[in-house]
């Protein structure tokens, strides 16, 4: 597949942050933008958002993206245990603990699900320029993946710590993108994005913490939410143009694999985007006038 000519007409850079199945709200955002005649000139995705960013970059429509979500984001895809991982957790010396292969879940079903959707697609060949973010396990840096196998890139971006093993890409060992920035607006800024639509999600806090797993999830949510806020504070202050935050609020509780709620998530995302459309239109009109000043 070859990359198309740059989008004609009004367009934005779309950033989809981490948020597990809640990232399906981005489908509604994309639908609202498309219905309003607003194109997407670049898309950035992180963790769960990487899957949807890839689908947007491929030019899939909302119905196709919803179908992909239901097929790929299932409990079955992530519930297969990695028994060696558990043994390495319990007896690291005996079973040879290695950070580059440590994970408590087997990623084979997830990889198969992603491969069924994206095949051998490469990141650099998507019709819309695509950036997938991950985190360098050795130094914590945000890694912007713009080349290589698309499925490997998504898998690296969604390497939920402890659950899935890091991914070796080139000379880097990569873990989940949310560990360096849950909503990587900086990637859009560095690539010249002016009008940036950022779809972000806060990590949910646990109601009942009665296991070590939930305890760890609570710690992770605290860190991720504080990181989200601090990064957004800096990026808001530093961006030279405009960033429109879309932060869908879900009245219904959404579990990690609540694919039954995908239609609800899409609707909430679309409604959140529709609220921003009047301003977005005015902003894009102003951008067009700035680029093409009316001849005197």
């Amino acid at each position, binding site marked *: 597949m070859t990359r198309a000519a740059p989008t004609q007409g009004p367009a934005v850079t779309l950033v989809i942050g981490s948020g597990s199945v809640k990232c399906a709200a981005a489908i509604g955002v994309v639908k609202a933008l498309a219905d309003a005649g607003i194109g997407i000139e670049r898309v950035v995705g992180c963790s769960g958002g990487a899957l949807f960013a890839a689908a947007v970059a491929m030019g899939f429509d909302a119905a196709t993206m919803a179908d992909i979500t239901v097929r790929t984001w299932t409990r079955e895809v992530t519930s297969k245990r990695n028994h060696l991982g558990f043994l390495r957790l319990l007896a690291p010396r005996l079973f040879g603990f290695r950070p580059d292969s440590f994970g408590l879940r087997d990623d084979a079903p997830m990889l198969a699900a992603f491969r069924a959707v994206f095949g051998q697609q490469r990141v650099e060949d998507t019709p819309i320029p695509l950036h997938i973010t991950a985190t360098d396990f050795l130094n914590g840096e945000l890694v912007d993946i713009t080349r290589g196998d698309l499925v490997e890139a998504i898998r690296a971006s969604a390497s939920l710590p402890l659950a899935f093993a890091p991914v070796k890409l080139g000379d880097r060992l990569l873990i989940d993108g949310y560990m360096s920035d849950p909503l990587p607006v900086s990637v859009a800024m560095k690539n010249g994005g002016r009008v940036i639509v950022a779809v972000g999600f806060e990590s949910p806090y646990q109601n009942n913490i009665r296991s070590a797993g939930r305890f760890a999830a609570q710690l992770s949510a605290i860190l991720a939410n504080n990181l989200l*806020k601090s990064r957004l504070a800096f990026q*808001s202050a530093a*961006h030279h143009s*405009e*960033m*429109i*935050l879309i*932060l869908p609020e879900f009245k219904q509780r959404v579990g990690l694999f609540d694919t039954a709620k995908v239609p609800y998530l899409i609707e909430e995302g679309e409604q959140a985007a529709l609220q921003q459309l009047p*301003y977005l239109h005015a*902003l894009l009109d102003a951008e067009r006038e700035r680029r093409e000043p009316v001849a005197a």
Partner: protein
Amino acid sequence: MQITLTPHDTLAVLAITGSIDSLNADELTQRFAQAMDQGHVRLVADFSLVNYTSSAGLRSLLGAVKSCRLAGGDLRVAAVQPQVNRVLEIAGFTSILNIYPDVRHAVESFTEAA
């Protein structure tokens, strides 16, 4: 967006109406600067009628807060609507801004500190 400046004894209240975004953030920045030029380094931004703020609006607020504090005063924000507070909160601004439930409390906070 509409802005009305009301001077008090030792401070000024800027009542802002509408959306603060990149199409009008410069105007807000100028109004903050004008208030400071008039000697008001203690400012209260009445947000009761602000229904939206974008990153451009956040930058305007940040610049005004820094200028006021450098001059020994402060910009305090009052009556922030929930949808605007969510943006302030998610962008970390609630950790650096002094925010009050209404203008009266914001004005009194300066008196208490004096």
